[in-house]
């Protein structure tokens, strides 16, 4: 559960988000908004990548301003471009990368990496160089590299933008099967039509908050 209390954020003196107070407890939450509305900053607030200029963000009770590191461990973050997220040159090395600093032994790391890869039938990619994979495979690897760290919940920032329809559908299936709560920022309105709650951000403010059936038609109307 993430609780935002009176959160405002300014970047270089320019206000990006203003006075957000929210409790995020639903299993699937979508976030929509125009380019530049502040939704990427909103996503980054949820795991302490951005700390608010005012107010507080609590991730399962952990204040991101006090202990951003602990908050990041709770929240897995999937970025828009997997090429900008995958750190190591080889698939298995990248999954292992986040595990090493947690003090696991070699065998334990290998076992966790294999388990994470088989979750999406990616075991055959284990020793492949990342740059040879397709965009869809890369996004699933990026997701696996986050899931292997066993986060309590996931934040995704436009994860389908660079995917073709088939890979987008594959990711939708993968997300649907996740037991972890998900907060997803996206322009792909069909993706979140079945979610439990949708937030709409406009000029850094919360413009709508409710069921997809209420918020999405409103958002479509506003974007005309």
């Amino acid at each position, binding site marked *: 559960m993430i609780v935002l209390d009176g959160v405002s954020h300014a970047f270089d003196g320019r206000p990006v988000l203003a006075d957000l107070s929210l409790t995020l407890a639903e299993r699937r939450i979508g976030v929509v908004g125009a380019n530049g509305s502040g939704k990427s900053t909103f996503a980054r607030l949820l795991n302490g990548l951005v700390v608010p200029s005012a107010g507080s963000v609590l991730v399962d009770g952990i204040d991101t301003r006090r202990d951003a590191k602990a908050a990041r461990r709770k929240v897995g*973050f999937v970025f828009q471009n997997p090429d900008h997220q995958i750190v190591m040159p*080889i698939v298995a090395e990248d999954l292992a990368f986040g595990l090493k600093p947690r003090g696991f032994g070699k065998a334990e790391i290998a076992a966790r990496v294999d388990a994470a890869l088989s979750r999406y039938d990616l075991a055959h990619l284990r020793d492949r*160089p990342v*740059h040879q994979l397709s965009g869809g495979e890369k996004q699933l690897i990026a997701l696996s590299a986050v899931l292997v760290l066993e986060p309590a919940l996931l934040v995704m920032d436009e994860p389908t933008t660079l995917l073709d329809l088939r890979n987008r559908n594959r990711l939708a299936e993968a997300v649907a099967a996740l037991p972890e709560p998900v907060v997803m920022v996206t322009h792909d309105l069909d993706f979140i039509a079945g979610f439990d709650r949708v937030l709409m951000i406009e000029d850094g403010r919360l413009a709508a908050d409710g069921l997809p059936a209420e918020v999405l038609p409103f958002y479509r109307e506003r974007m005309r």
Partner: protein
Amino acid sequence: MTIGLYAPGASALHRLPAGVKLGALVAASLALFAIPSTIVALAAVPVAFAVYLSTGLGLNRLILELRGPALLLCFVFVFHALAGSVEEGIAAVARFAALILLASAVTLTTPVSEMAALVERLLGPLEPLGVNPAKVGLAIALAIRFVPMIAEEYRQIREAQAARGLDRNLLALVVPLIIRTLKAADDLADAIEARGIET
């Protein structure tokens, strides 16, 4: 992972630990430069050649390796000859030839990953001085990761600039390449932090 100049094989040199090979190479170079004898330098060449051949790698590979240095060594010899000492020239060229052969043999028989692990080990004792071997390892991995990414970005930018006739303009190619890859670097730094890894 077989990237780089490493050529897989099963020779004695392939099986030797990277640290031993590197140590021997450094010792050989120190010896060759410390002993000012033309005979020793000349004798070192066939020895180095034998070491190279023992790796089981063909002569084709050797010619490829030595094409660049060969030209340089010609220049060195010519300068010595012009300065009046042909013997000095022969000794200098022989010394370089022997060391280049030995160093090539080490590089060709040692995987990059093994060399990288050796570097991390060698940096261990420097830790009190503030050198963090894990950070160096991360930097090596990231750089290897970036090379194909840059190549792909460059391909896209060249295509885009060709569409407006700017594909021979250095600024139009390099500036967008640097700015786009800097953006990627910023995202990647975020992604590393997002995974809860602090360095």
